[in-house]
Structures are given as structure tokens and as C-alpha cells.
């Protein structure tokens, strides 16, 4: 005959056994939390140490002159004018090329491409391209843009090279953003009689814009710090003039000569200064590195803000 257990409740020892078990489980929970905190702390401390080091070494060099002077043989006169203008113009070319190509490719792959072996092959290769070392892009660009097309070690060449480099990032981000748009929204548009392009243009593209923009900016923040490919294509390390202005006094008032101008860029300038023996140039390198890091942080902050702004109105 079995005991009526429900009415009697559990025995005292039984409850204590459960409590011991729970406290054992909670101890493991706490241990993992501590481990996670330690891992995060290590990353944060490393970054803070690097950043503080740069600030301590370089902050004294940060002055308006540092931004408006060209590089110089004398450390105290040297500035990053050519470098930041070079980086800025190269980034404009990179964005202008990588965004339309990457977004269009992403839309095609997600919304138009038939599901077959060729599409699969392209997909696999795009993912592989994201992992190709940047120097390989530099070698490709040297052969293709510099020698075959004769574009020289110009802003255009560097922009195209870095655009190729970040293209996989933009494509993957676009596809992920597009995939996040629910199928029922697509069906709603189709059921009203929309064509595929109307559906993409009126719905998928606007709703996936936050994700696409985030991907673009992450890609650009990667490109801004790339050194190897632009060294490979032959960017100069010392330059004392700016590319020609894009706006001119004479008709047609627009000039694209700056595209074919030689250039230097922030990472090259930093690398160049670090390789100097003099202490004062090390300070310059730290200051320039600080500027580059801040540029990247600003871009990331912009990405976060844009994503927040655009996502506020998006829910399904």
C-alpha cells in the first residue's frame, strides 16, 4: 500500500537535499559569471591600457598645427595633413564603390538569385573572400589597377582596393539585414500586387537600411586602418602636397583630378614615424594613432546612433 504523499508533504531531509543541490548549482552559476567578467575585463583593460599609453605619449603633440602641417624632417613641425586628407579621400572612393556594389549584390543574392549550385558557389566564395588576408588584395590591385589599368599609386587605386576588401563585409551585412525582414511583410506587399522590385524598393530596402548602414560603417572602419594593401600598391610615405581640390573656379567647376593624385594615409604615416629612431617621432606616431582610433570610434558611434534612430520605428 502506498503512502498518501501529497498531504504529508516532503520529509525534512528531502528538502535539505534540494537546497544543497540548488546552492551547488548557484555556485557554478556564479563561477561562470566571474569567468565571463574576467574575460571581458581582460579585453577592456588591454584596450584602456593601449589607449592611455597613446594619450600619454601623443596628447602633447595634438594641436591645430598637427592637423594642418605636412610631414617634416623635424618632429616638432611634422603634421598629418597629407595623411588625414589622403585617408578621407580614399574612404570616399571606397564607400562610393563598395556601397552600391555590395548592397546590389546582397539584394540580388537574397531576393532574386535562384537557389542552385551556382548561387551556392558564389555564396561560399563571398564568405571566403571575407577571410582573405588584405595583402592579397594589395597584390591583386597592384597587378590589376596599377599595372594593367595604369591607374598608378593613386587615391582611386587605393579606394578601389579597399572597396574590394570590404565588399564581402557589405554583402554579408546587407544579406543579413534583408533576411531579418519577415516573410509576411514581403507577402503582404506581393498580395497587394507589387512586383519584386517594388517590394524591394518600398519595403525590404528601407526596413533593412539600419543593418546595411551598420555593415557599411563596420566595413569602412576596417578599411580605414588597413596598411598592407595600400603599401603594396605603392602609396608614398612622404608627401608635401594635397590632391587637387574637387571644386574649381572655372567651368565645369568640378574636377576629378584628385582621384589620380598620389597620396599617403594615416596608417602609413604612423608606420613611417614608428620606424624612426628619434623619440620625438614616436610621440608623433602615438598622436596620429590616437587620431586614427578616435576616427574609428566616431564612425562606430555614428553606426550605433544611426541604427538606433532608424530602428526606433521598425517593429513587426
Amino acid at each position, binding site marked *: 500500500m502506498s503512502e498518501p504523499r501529497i498531504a504529508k508533504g516532503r520529509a525534512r531531509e528531502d528538502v535539505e537535499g534540494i537546497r544543497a543541490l540548488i546552492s551547488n548549482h548557484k555556485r557554478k552559476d556564479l563561477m561562470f559569471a566571474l569567468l565571463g567578467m574576467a574575460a571581458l575585463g581582460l579585453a577592456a583593460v588591454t584596450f584602456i591600457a593601449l589607449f592611455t599609453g597613446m594619450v600619454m605619449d601623443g596628447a602633447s603633440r595634438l594641436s591645430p598645427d598637427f592637423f594642418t602641417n605636412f610631414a617634416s624632417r623635424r618632429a616638432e613641425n611634422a603634421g598629418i595633413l597629407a595623411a588625414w586628407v589622403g585617408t578621407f579621400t580614399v574612404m570616399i572612393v571606397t564607400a562610393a564603390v563598395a556601397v552600391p556594389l555590395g548592397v546590389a549584390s546582397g539584394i540580388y543574392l537574397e531576393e532574386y538569385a535562384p537557389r542552385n549550385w551556382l548561387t551556392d558557389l558564389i555564396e561560399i566564395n563571398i564568405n571566403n573572400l571575407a577571410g582573405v588576408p588584405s595583402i592579397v588584395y594589395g597584390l591583386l590591385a597592384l597587378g590589376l589597377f596599377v599595372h594593367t589599368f595604369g591607374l598608378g599609386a593613386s587615391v582611386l587605386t587605393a579606394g578601389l582596393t579597399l572597396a574590394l576588401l570590404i565588399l564581402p563585409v557589405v554583402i554579408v551585412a546587407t544579406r543579413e539585414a534583408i533576411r531579418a525582414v519577415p516573410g509576411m*511583410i514581403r507577402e503582404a506587399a506581393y498580395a497587394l500586387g507589387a512586383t519584386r522590385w517594388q517590394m524591394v524598393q518600398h519595403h525590404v530596402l528601407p526596413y533593412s537600411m539600419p543593418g546595411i548602414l551598420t555593415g557599411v560603417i563596420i566595413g569602412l572602419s576596417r578599411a580605414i586602418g588597413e596598411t598592407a594593401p595600400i603599401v603594396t600598391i605603392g602609396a608614398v610615405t612622404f608627401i608635401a602636397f594635397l590632391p587637387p581640390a574637387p571644386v574649381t573656379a572655372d567651368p565645369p567647376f568640378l574636377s576629378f583630378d584628385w582621384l589620380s593624385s598620389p597620396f599617403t594615409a594615416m596608417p602609413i604615416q604612423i608606420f613611417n614615424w614608428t620606424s624612426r629612431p628619434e623619440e620625438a617621432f614616436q610621440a608623433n606616431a602615438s598622436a596620429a594613432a590616437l587620431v586614427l582610433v578616435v576616427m574609428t570610434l566616431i564612425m562606430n558611434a555614428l553606426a550605433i546612433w544611426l541604427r538606433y534612430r532608424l530602428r526606433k520605428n521598425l517593429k513587426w
Partner: protein
Amino acid sequence: MTADEQKPDPSTLPKKAEAKDLSFYYGSKRALKQINLPIYEHRVTALIGPSGCGKSTFLRCFNRMHDLYPGNRYEGEIRLLPDNVNLLAPEVDPIEVRMRLAMVFQKPNPFPKSIFENVAYGLRIRGINARSELDDRIEKALKNAALWNEVRDRLDDLATNLSGGQQQRLCIARALASEPELMLFDEPTSALDPIATGSIEELIHQLRDQVTILIVTHNMQQAARVSDFTAYMYLGDLVEFGWTDDVFFRPKQKQTEDYITGRFG
């Protein structure tokens, strides 16, 4: 439909559409087996049956939603009357079909845009962009969907901030705005609470004066409440079709009776 209401012989009623020997395949899987079903004009026809019986699949044939996904194949015809066009014919553009028919989905799916733009969307892709015409037709559609009084002062607000029931009525307004010939409802209240469900059912009942309605429902009481005709489907077959109260109170097939009385399903 009240019991004492006169029920004419269905064969004398005007038809809005008719499925003829309709079969449908997902790849090699046959999901619909030679369905023959008339859809009577200005009547509500309910499709009932257990999950997986093919009722939603059947509904989605009407506006060619299956064309959006690869590997789907239709056999047979769906004739839209009075012009007797076969909606499933390969030479008929699915976009043309979707311009003439409208659909309301299982879960409310307003676009994350303003209330106004949601209702305007169907009109805009039909080339109607004049503000005065849009205003008139949107007001009319929202009134028909019994939503106008709740949203008239906030047409520029986000549609996704409305309650679930309001969102579904907005989707009905969006579908109504382009004056469809036939409206397809795919379990329109399955994501809604009982009160919102009641208002949608009442709306469907009122709408039949303007438009022919085909509704899929998993809820038998709902079919009994809103429909004039009921079709019972099982495993891709149309088992029984007739006046709703005949199907519910005097089913001809044992299988229908078992489903309706809750013995299975």
C-alpha cells in the same frame, strides 16, 4: 444565417469563382487533390478542416502566392467570373491576379509605416498618387473596415503601434482600398483575443454585401458564425460542401460529422 432564412438551391446562385479539378503540388508532394468548389458571389465561404488538410494551400492558389516559391505546381483551373479567366493559367500574370483579389493574413502584417501609407500602398502601386483621391479612398476603406473612428485623428502614426485587432482591421482596410473582386482571409483571427475576434467576425459578415469572401478558419464556431457556405477538407480532399447549417447540422459524410462534433481533429 438564421435557420428560417430562405435557402435557395445553390445552383441558381451567381458564382464569383470556381475551382475545377484543382490539384496542387509542393515539389512531388500532392497537397490538393482535384478540388471542385464554387464560390458564390457576395457570400462568405468558409474552409474548415484539421491542420494540414490543405485549406490554406487552397486559399493561396487563388492569388497565386505559391508562385513566389520554387518547386510549386498547379493542375486544373480556378475560373474567375464573370470574365471566366483561369487564374492559374501560365499566361496570366500573377501580379494581375493579385491586383484583382485581396488577401488578409493569419497574423496582422501592417507595414512599419504610417496608418495612411499602409492603406495607400495598394493604391499607390496602381498608380494613384493624387492626394485628394487617396484621402477619399483611404477614408472609405477605413470606414468599411470599422477603423475610421479610432484612427481618423492619427493617420500619420505608425501602424505597428495599433493593437493587434486594430492592426488586423487595418490590414482589411488595406485590402479593401483597391476594391478587390474577391477577398481571401487566411485564419484572420488566430492571433487575436476574443473581443478583437468578435469585431473582425462582425466586419466579415458586413463586408459580404460589397465583396465575395473566402475564409480559412481553424475555428468551427467561427465558420458557423460568419459563413453562408462551408467546405470541409481533409488531407487535400474536399470532403463536403454546402450551406453552412447543412454542413454543421445535417452533414452527409460521416467524416464531416466526426470532425464537427469534435470526435477528431
